[in-house]
């Protein structure tokens, strides 16, 4: 203050009033609180993923605020609200997704409700029995994002991202297939049925299957698929055939596939390749044999028991099959009804069963000309088609190509299309024919006449027997007394003879004098005979003795 007067020229300092609104450091606290709160809010916003809308056909088991969306078992979202759609047909669920799902929400991303489910031999979603249903999610592959989805009614069998490939099968019927039906390759389960749909025209079904890696590489363009549904009974000329893939497929059905050995080396089929689904393995594995040549066989005998698919064998080895069995009536001028059997022969099969195909073909491919000449030669040697019974029980027939024992000359008719192959009657049908002819002869026998004649003969025989009877009776009455008298006489004569014999015996009895005398006499005679022999012997040697007498010195 005193300076005021001593230094008048100095400018007066402006004294600013102390700003009353100077911020106290305590304001840091609300600022920190605000920052903290703001940070939390920012975090919350950052942690908040997209909100999506899923349309369900039923919200059964879903609960707003509780039901979670899971991707491979990890929670990635929560159902926020459930509302009935405007059309009252579906339920729209608003789902708060996790932020990391932003890139997953593609157009073909699918959602479904996971409930306990028993299908395709597997029980899934058992966990939901306790925890309640949840919404499953499979990420799609589309490029465009989406925020609105329609839930699937059935969960996809194949989890997204599973390595493997989808294929399509064309089937006439679904058989016992269902979602998740197993697919077997050499009895290993390698995949399952993913979905099926009826084609637009309703004539065929398209079954979409998934084959897991690494088995998908065994699906080649030539691979055949067949229904391994349950138990396959087939009764054919080959006999009874029972087949099943596994006990599980016995219960729930299944599919199986295999590739013919020839095509094993091929490249794996591309994903979504279409295949035909065959009814069974036998049909599947033989169906598309290439290079089949067809022949027509005309049979004048019954072809009952011969059906399409029956084997055609060459000397017992299968080389083809019957394609169709029809009747052929010739033309109007020359009516001739006969069975027309169309058969397909597979030259490849013939070559396959040859021990050394090189020798026949000379290492070249079997050209049609070569084939023709081979068949012609075989026919010239008596090869004929014959119907034979494959199965006596069922009467199934098959076509056998065999050499006829005494072939009538026949040629294969190459001009007609398809060529006509010569046939011969045979097998059981031949026996049948013989039996028939025997029966015909039997039929021609005059059994009636024979019967009546026999009857007459029998009547005559009866009369004769009666006559015999009376004769016998007469004999009985008239002859027997006489006979007995004769017998008495005879007996008497015999007794007399006996007496005579006894007397003779007495005479000849040992010790009787007559016998002694006789014996002595005989001895004498014997001696005399000996003497005679001695005499004759001597005389033989010394005939001179007859004149000179017996010489003294004997020789």
């Amino acid at each position, binding site marked *: 203050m005193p300076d005021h007067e001593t230094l008048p020229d100095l400018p007066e300092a402006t004294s600013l009033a102390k700003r009353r609104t100077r911020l*106290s450091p*305590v*304001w840091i*606290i*609300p600022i*920190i*609180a*605000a920052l*903290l*709160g703001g940070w*939390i*809010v920012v975090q919350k916003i950052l942690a908040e993923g997209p909100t999506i809308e899923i349309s369900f056909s039923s919200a059964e088991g879903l609960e707003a605020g509780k039901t*979670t969306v899971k991707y491979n078992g990890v929670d990635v979202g929560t159902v926020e609200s459930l509302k009935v759609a405007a059309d009252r047909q579906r339920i729209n669920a608003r789902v708060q997704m996790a932020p990391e799902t932003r890139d997953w929400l593609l157009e073909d991303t699918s959602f479904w409700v996971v409930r306990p489910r028993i299908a395709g031999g597997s029980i899934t979603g058992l966990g939901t029995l*306790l*925890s309640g249903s949840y919404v499953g999610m499979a990420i799609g592959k589309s490029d465009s994002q989406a925020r609105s989805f329609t839930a699937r009614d059935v969960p996809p069998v194949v989890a997204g991202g599973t390595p493997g490939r989808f294929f399509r099968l064309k089937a006439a019927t679904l058989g016992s297939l269902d979602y998740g039906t197993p697919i077997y390759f050499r009895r290993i389960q390698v995949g399952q049925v993913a979905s099926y749909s009826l084609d637009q025209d309703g004539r065929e079904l398209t079954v979409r299957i998934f084959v897991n890696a690494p088995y998908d590489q065994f699906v080649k363009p030539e691979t055949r698929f067949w229904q391994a549904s349950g138990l396959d009974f087939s009764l054919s000329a080959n006999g009874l055939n029972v087949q099943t893939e596994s006990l599980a497929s016995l219960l729930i059905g299944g599919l199986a596939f295999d590739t013919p050995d020839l095509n094993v080396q091929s490249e794996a089929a591309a994903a979504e390749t279409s295949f035909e689904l065959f009814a069974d393995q036998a049909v599947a594995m033989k169906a598309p044999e290439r290079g089949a040549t067809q022949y027509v066989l005309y049979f004048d005998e019954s072809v009952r028991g011969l059906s399409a698919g029956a084997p055609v064998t060459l000397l017992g080895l299968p080389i083809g099959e019957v394609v169709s069995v029809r009747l052929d009536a010739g033309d109007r001028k020359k009516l001739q009804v006969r069975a027309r059997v169309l058969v397909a022969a597979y030259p490849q099969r013939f070559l396959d069963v040859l021990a050394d195909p090189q020798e026949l073909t000379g290492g070249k491919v079997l050209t049609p000309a070569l084939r023709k000449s081979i068949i012609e030669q075989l026919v010239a040697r008596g090869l004929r088609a014959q119907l034979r019974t494959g199965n006596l029980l069922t009467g199934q027939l098959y076509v056998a190509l065999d050499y006829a024992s005494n072939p009538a000359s026949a040629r294969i008719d190459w001009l007609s299309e398809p060529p006509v192959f010569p046939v011969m009657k045979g097998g059981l049908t031949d026996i049948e024919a013989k039996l028939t002819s025997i029966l015909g002869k039997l039929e021609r026998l005059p059994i009636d006449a024979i019967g009546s004649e026999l009857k007459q003969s029998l009547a005559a025989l009866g009369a004769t027997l009666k006559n015999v009877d009376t004769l016998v009776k007469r004999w009985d009455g008239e002859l027997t007394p006489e006979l007995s008298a004769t017998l008495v006489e005879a007996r008497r004569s015999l007794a007399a003879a006996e007496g005579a014999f006894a007397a003779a015996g007495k005479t000849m009895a040992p010790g009787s004098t007559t016998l002694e005398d006789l014996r002595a006499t005989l001895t004498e005679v014997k001696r005399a005979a000996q003497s005679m022999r001695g005499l004759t012997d001597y005389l033989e040697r010394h005939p001179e003795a007859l004149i000179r007498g017996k010489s003294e010195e004997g020789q």
Partner: protein
Amino acid sequence: MNAQPATAMSLGLAGCEVCGLVSRPLAGQPPHCPRCGERLHFRRPASIERCWALVIAALILYLPANLLPVLTTYTPLGSQTDTIMQGVVELWSPTSWPLAIVVFVASITIPLGKLIALAYLLITVQRGSPKSSRQRVRLYRMVKFIGRWSMLDVFVDTFVVALVQLKPLMWMAPGPGVMFFAGVVVVTMVAVNCFDPRLIWDLPQKECHA
């Protein structure tokens, strides 16, 4: 109300807030209590400003404290997070409704009530309203008394989390809301402490004097 008694400040005296000794502080240097050495103020410095700042901070914290979960319950079937209000709703059943009321009052009503009461006191003090100063003082006392009970919620939360650790059957974990809730309680208590109740009757007196 007519005869306003003289205040210590009007007589140039300051009371020590620790030992209660009334002394006459010298102008110039910051005064200290001659007996206990405590800093002496005629009135708590920047009381209104600090109180406002803390009230606003508490209000900001109050939002996340109630919006964020305070407790997460894990069971084998999933986890469940609960905010304070969700806990109250869950407790609201025919058997445990008294508990629901206790939680509701202790955790939601009281913190908010305290902040509203403080804001009301601050506004009336700033406006120098002379009305019902006695009731306002009573309100202040109530706010100060109740403050220490507000930690009940935090206490229960920590207790439950510490006790229920029956892994893997059931266990609990604290949520981020607890920290904010504790922040609300602490900041509110500090705010109440910053408020100088003498201001309630200061200004009307001044006005009376003027």
